[in-house]
């Protein structure tokens, strides 16, 4: 059936049958258009709920943000019409990715955090989730000390229904420690996750890459290699894990550069139309580093680039590719730093 001939229910039904990805997103967007054209707020809300979830977990955070903005507006205009809990829960997904957009100012982000805090309090939830997300956001701003202070508050409070699952929170801690550069503490905090005692839909997928570099630096490459293989299978093929696919490239650059190139080729296409600029930046930065490493080899490489890639003709010039990807990454880092008011990301890229 032609897309334009399908009614709302057909579109939603077909969307539910698809795995997360572009095709599903398009059906949901068409469902939104059909619902809006008919002025049906409930259908518009339903389809957007799906977009928020899909966008948050399959690499379309901007689409998720826009859909969520519409939902929250309608939620306020129509008190009691929509489910509170699921909307409040998805607020976290939106906040979790919002720092990636350099165009959004710190004040705007602070305002949203405060808005979430007020709304959670009105629904009877504690401010623990607020502090938890504030810790994450400060971490994204590169303000690790301020973030640590928020973490301290989080740890004194009791979990409630709005808390992320325990595996996710433990992962949050691992990530924080990794950013602080404390290798031993990172590995130790990751232990309950790596041993399988704490898992969820995204853990240990996202945790494994955080311990690879620390393990390598601690001289435990064997463990790291084994984990890398395991972790790569978990993030393989899902666009949402671009950041972690990039970290696999980064690790393999140090241990098996040719394999790193294969991983790069696998994800370069999805990185191009990815909606998260911060994740793209990390992907580009690790790719640049890999190409620099490959440039040291005497063998000639033929890099498979997608059709219409700006460097399509330079597929044999790894040094030029290194330069190109580094510039891309730096451009984003500079924008983020300007917004954040420091030099965190520019320095981070240098240190990778």
């Amino acid at each position, binding site marked *: 059936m032609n897309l334009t001939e399908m009614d709302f229910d057909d579109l939603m039904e077909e969307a539910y049958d*698809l795995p997360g990805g*572009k*095709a599903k997103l398009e059906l949901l967007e068409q469902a939104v*258009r059909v619902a809006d054209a008919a002025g049906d707020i409930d259908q518009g809300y339903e389809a957007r709920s799906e977009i928020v979830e899909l966008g948050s977990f399959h690499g379309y955070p901007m689409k998720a943000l826009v859909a969520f903005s*519409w939902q929250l507006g309608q939620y306020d205009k129509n008190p009691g019409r929509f489910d509170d809990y699921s909307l409040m829960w998805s607020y976290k997904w939106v906040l979790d990715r919002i720092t990636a957009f350099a165009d*959004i100012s710190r004040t*705007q982000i602070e305002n*949203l955090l405060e808005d979430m805090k007020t709304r959670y309090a009105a629904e009877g939830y504690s401010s623990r989730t607020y502090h938890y997300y504030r810790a994450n956001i400060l971490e994204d701003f590169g303000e690790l000390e301020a973030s640590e202070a928020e973490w301290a508050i989080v740890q004194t409070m009791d979990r409630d229904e709005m808390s992320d699952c325990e595996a996710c929170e433990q992962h949050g801690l691992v990530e924080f420690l990794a950013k602080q550069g404390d290798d031993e503490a990172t590995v130790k905090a990751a232990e309950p996750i790596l041993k399988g005692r704490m898992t969820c839909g995204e853990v240990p997928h996202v945790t494994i890459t955080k311990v690879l570099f620390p393990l390598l630096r601690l001289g435990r490459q064997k463990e790291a290699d084994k984990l890398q293989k395991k972790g790569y299978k978990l993030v393989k093929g899902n666009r949402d894990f671009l950041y972690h696919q990039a970290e696999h490239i980064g690790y393999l650059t140090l241990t098996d550069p040719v394999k790193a190139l294969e991983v790069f080729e696998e994800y370069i296409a999805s990185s191009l139309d990815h909606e998260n600029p911060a994740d793209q930046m990390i992907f580009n930065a690790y790719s640049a580093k890999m190409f620099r490493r490959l440039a040291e080899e005497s063998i000639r490489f033929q890099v498979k680039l*997608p059709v219409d890639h700006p460097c399509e003709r330079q597929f044999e010039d790894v040094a030029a590719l290194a330069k190109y990807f580094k510039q891309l990454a730096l451009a984003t880092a500079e924008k983020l730093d300007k917004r954040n008011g420091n030099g965190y990301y520019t320095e981070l890229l240098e240190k990778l």
Partner: protein
Amino acid sequence: MENQNQDTYRFQVNLSGMINILSNHLYSSPKVFLRELLQNGIDAITARQAYSPAGYEGKIHVEVSGTSTGATLLVEDNGIGLDEAEIHEFLAMIGQSSKRGEDFLSTNTSFIGRFGIGLLSCFMVSDDIVMVTQSAKGGPALEWRGKPDGTYTIRKLEGAHAPGTKVFLRCKEGSEAYFEESNLQEGLFHYGALLPYPIQLVSDRNTRLINPLTPPWVKDPQLARKHRDEVLSFGKQVLGETFRDFIPLHTASGRTGGIAFILPHAVNLNAKRNHRVYLKHMLVSEAASNILPDWAFFVKCLIWTDELQPTASREHFYENAQLEQVREELGNSIRQELMRMAEYDPDRLQSIISLHALSMKALAVEDSSFYSIIHEWLPFESTYGRKTLGELKQQPPLYFTATLDEYRQITHVASAQSMLVVNGGYIYDAELLARLPLIDPDVQTERLLPEEVSLSFTDITPQERLDYYESVRLADSVLQKFRCQVQLRRFKPEEIPVLYTLSEESAQWRVMEATKEVSTDALASVLGSLGASLKETAYATLYFNLNNPIIEKVFHQGNQATLPSIVEMLYCNALMMGHYPMNRQEIALLNQGIIQFIDWGLTANQATGGDE
């Protein structure tokens, strides 16, 4: 102890609690007691074979008598049997395990331990279980009688008995169905169709053999090709579906094999995969989903293995390295067969692809060598209709859209110009099209953006450009505030007065602008910031078709007064036809426009007195 031959013991377990665990938490249905009894029999036969192989032939005899609650079931094997110490051993093990519950079931793999659990599962359908057993290692025959209240007795029997074990079950109220002859026949076949020992079912009326002699293709799946009809009819008997084709499965170690029946109907990507798996000849799972790679959703498999570890309930497998390897090797069997078909039997491949294109595409995305071999048969939607990639690539360069939305914008116009455009909007398609040049260097593919369709439009002549210059400028100024430019062209079909195309950024910007109007202040401000950078690159174009007689009239000089309203209305109409969200300003425009046109209509009417 009045009788020297009879001792009364007590279970050291809360038996009803144990049965509760079994029936409510472990097994999916009480009917599995039959599998457990068969398994006990097979284990006993295997043990006896190891103990004294010479001239021994294992067999299982099942007999049902009486009806409804008077029914009794006997399951007998001629296996190794148990002596008294072994009976105490398994009961003690159950005792030890009662506190640990399920954990014990998954870790205990010894013959004796499993035997006990198997026997215990019979309490799900019977309150009165009697076991008579004679160990092949000697000693007296024993009768064990258990009650669900936790007591049991063991009695030594007089006289000579052949080695083996008989289990008698008396039907419990509510379990009548499990004792019906037809259900028993079905259940025994269900679990034991591949057992290498004969199972006989005897009732008051009939005696029959449940399982055929193990077919040769179970030992060597490659032989299945020579027994096509037999394999297909076995598939129908076991899986209840009529298949037309299958692929033999095997692993290098030879410890796992099977038949992948190709589903005779198209399936959904998210459909549940239900493969039927036999572990050591016994059915373990009829809903195994993790034994084949994800892309293999177009087959339903019978698989037999002796190398995987079942979960406690024996209905699934543990996700471990071994399973992963088996999954990969089984996937390889399918992949290689498909590649072989591409070379030697393209018709067969084509008939599979016609039903299961999606599955093939999923695999092709994962594996470029597979893609390279089967790509010519993969179907895609295009402005020339549904065609295979083999046909499509004859007409280079191959244009494709990356999304359904883009395809929708241009399909009518592209078709009218006989321009070949492939719809890449469906799952996997754009990805595969983008990769096509990597597997076939002679083919060029190019992503087509909606605005590029105008490349095939005919430019207006310099004279026309001059003639319409003022009108076009006026029209352009009208739409400027909507970040939309006006272009005058000639294109087919002439029935289309205007074509609206917009870039991805523009589409996203429109959605943001419209969302800002309904959202909260904090988020509206965020959307404003995000939109600002999009707006710079966002642009849309409204192409007016000079081949269309009305448009020609509209742009004709002398229509300057009505032109702005007409352009605005055509613009609003294009937005509505494309289901693009309209902001307040645009909706206001539409409303004013309609009033304006009504007014013009009435004025014209009055002028002519209602006559044309």
